[in-house]
């Protein structure tokens, strides 16, 4: 989908997008004219969709266009095309502060978001208007609530732990890139990341992991990383595994005992 879109010429793309948008408007408008109680409300909704895209475009043209180009076509060597990436990808990148990117580097680090969630949604709407793409299901909360944590753990270990670590602590990738830690991330962010494969992360579209399976994984991550204070002490040593445990035995255990030997016995 994305690959073929990239090869299409700009005007055809825009024309196609416009046609799709018009079509969507016609369908939406038609549906509303059937279901909506009043004409006034329908107009308001239309305006709302329209204005979201317009507002999104305004933001895009000031903050994103320098790398991603006119109408999200991408600029060789600066930023990839955003045609077809969908609103989920945009909202993930913008809400985690990865975009707009401060400087070109091995990878865009997460940061303080520069836009509100509402503004991110507008940009997302604009990108979706340009080329469609994936988005987060509305009933994600319900899906996560009924998810199978055990199943999620199984899927997490096969698909995610190799980069993000057993305990979601993140991990290093090649040449300065890294898989971020999963502490404190929201359900939506995890879902968006799986769906869209930001940066070096592989894509886990709905045909690889169904929305239910994604919800399982989200439930597992939230349980293990964020919700559960599992037993075994006050300090978890960052859960970086044996390397911090090795540091701890020297810095805490060995140091305490060496001081004790100095107290117990003579010094020279």
């Amino acid at each position, binding site marked *: 989908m994305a690959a073929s879109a990239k090869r299409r010429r700009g005007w055809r793309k825009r024309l196609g997008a416009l046609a799709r948008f018009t079509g969507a408007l016609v369908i939406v408008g038609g549906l509303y004219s059937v279901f909506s109680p009043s004409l006034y409300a329908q107009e308001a909704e239309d305006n709302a969709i329209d204005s979201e895209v317009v507002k999104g475009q305004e933001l895009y043209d000031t903050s994103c266009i320098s790398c991603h180009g006119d109408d999200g076509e991408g600029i060789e060597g600066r930023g990839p095309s955003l045609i077809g990436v969908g609103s989920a990808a945009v909202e993930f990148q913008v809400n985690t502060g990865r975009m707009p990117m401060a400087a070109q580097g091995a990878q865009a680090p997460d940061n303080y978001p520069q836009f509100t969630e509402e503004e991110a949604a507008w940009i997302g709407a604009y990108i979706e208007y340009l080329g469609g793409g994936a988005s987060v299901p509305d009933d994600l909360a319900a899906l996560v609530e009924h998810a199978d944590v055990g199943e999620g753990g199984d899927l997490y270990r096969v698909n995610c732990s*190799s980069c993000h670590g057993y305990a979601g602590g993140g991990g290093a990738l090649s040449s300065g890139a890294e898989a971020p830690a999963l502490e404190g991330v929201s359900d939506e962010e995890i879902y968006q990341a799986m769906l869209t494969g930001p940066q070096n992360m592989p*894509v886990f579209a709905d045909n690889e992991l169904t929305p239910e399976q994604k919800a399982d994984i989200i439930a597992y991550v939230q349980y293990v990383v964020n919700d559960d204070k*599992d037993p075994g002490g006050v300090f978890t040593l960052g859960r970086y595994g044996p390397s911090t445990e090795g540091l701890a035995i020297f810095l805490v255990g060995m140091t305490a005992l060496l001081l004790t030997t100095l107290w117990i016995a003579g010094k020279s």
Partner: protein
Amino acid sequence: MSAHNDSARDEVAPVDLDDPKLTRFEVYKEGLRRDDIEIIHYEPRFPRPGTKAEKRMERIVSGLFLLSGLFATLFVAAFIWWPWEYEGAATWRDPQTWYTPVIGATLGFSLLFFALGVLTWAKKLLPIEELVQDRHDGGSSKDDRRIAESTVDTLVEDMGLRRRPFLVKSALLAAAPLGLAAVAPLGALLKDPGDMYTVTGWNAERYNDGEPIRLMMKDGALVRPDMVSAGGQITVYPAIDHGATNQFPTAPTLLIHLREADAETLRGNLYPMYQDVDAIWGNFVAYSKICTHVGCPASLYEQQSQRLLCPCHQSQFNVVDNAAPVFGPATRHLPMLPITVDDEGYFVATSDFLVPPGPAFWNRPSLPEEDEK
């Protein structure tokens, strides 16, 4: 206090233990003398017994012991009565979260306070003492050595080891196989490695009556091309009995759907042996997930830089160049599993891996086609 020479001790005369006027300490010192020990310095820590300072030190030490007892009691009580059973999704507010810290801290403090009590007793209440003991370094005395030599010679003579050489030789001759017999039972552990390194779960002849083996996910779902989107990857296993279990440790494979441009690059780089069997299907390529270094799953797929990274020793493989190693200690590419799509639209492996997957082993054959780049 001044330097001691070794002869000083010899001047101390032995005491007559039958002398009724001997004090206890003099008898004790006679013991030290017999053990070649001399007192250099010996004085009570508190010259006048019962001073305020001494009483204070006694109070400190007994206080430490009592604290230790208190914490030990707390430990036992917490061990028994503190709620401890994990009930899932616990927070800091749940008492069971604190079970391990509480019993650890109480037991730890109890031990530490007792230790401090004993140590303070030793350091602050025992007499200040410095003694010197003869080391008697070196071997035994000349006489002892000579007697020992003669004893051994007599034993050897008694057994006639020198006079009866044939006896000794035959005993040694028998001892060798007897020693072998002792370790022979360990041979029960031996097992012919056979082709365990070269045949994987993808071998259709052995595991699927010659029918091409389909690719499945861990939950058993068969894999179709539309199940992996571009820039995505999934771990696949041979669709045979227990195909996704540890029974087939070299079978796990990474199925990657490359983007068009990347697939193009790969097609340009493809090794002749993979070209010959048409190993990739469309933009899909399947690489063994088992690292060729020492066998961890090399499964950190970076879809932007098109690298596969192994988290154990950081070998990096270039996905668009036959997964050839580009960094780290791995020396060989991750073998490609030749795949195609069968009539029903499912992925199948057209054959086993062309080269043995996983870490190298001593008798791994050198395959000339591996070196073709």
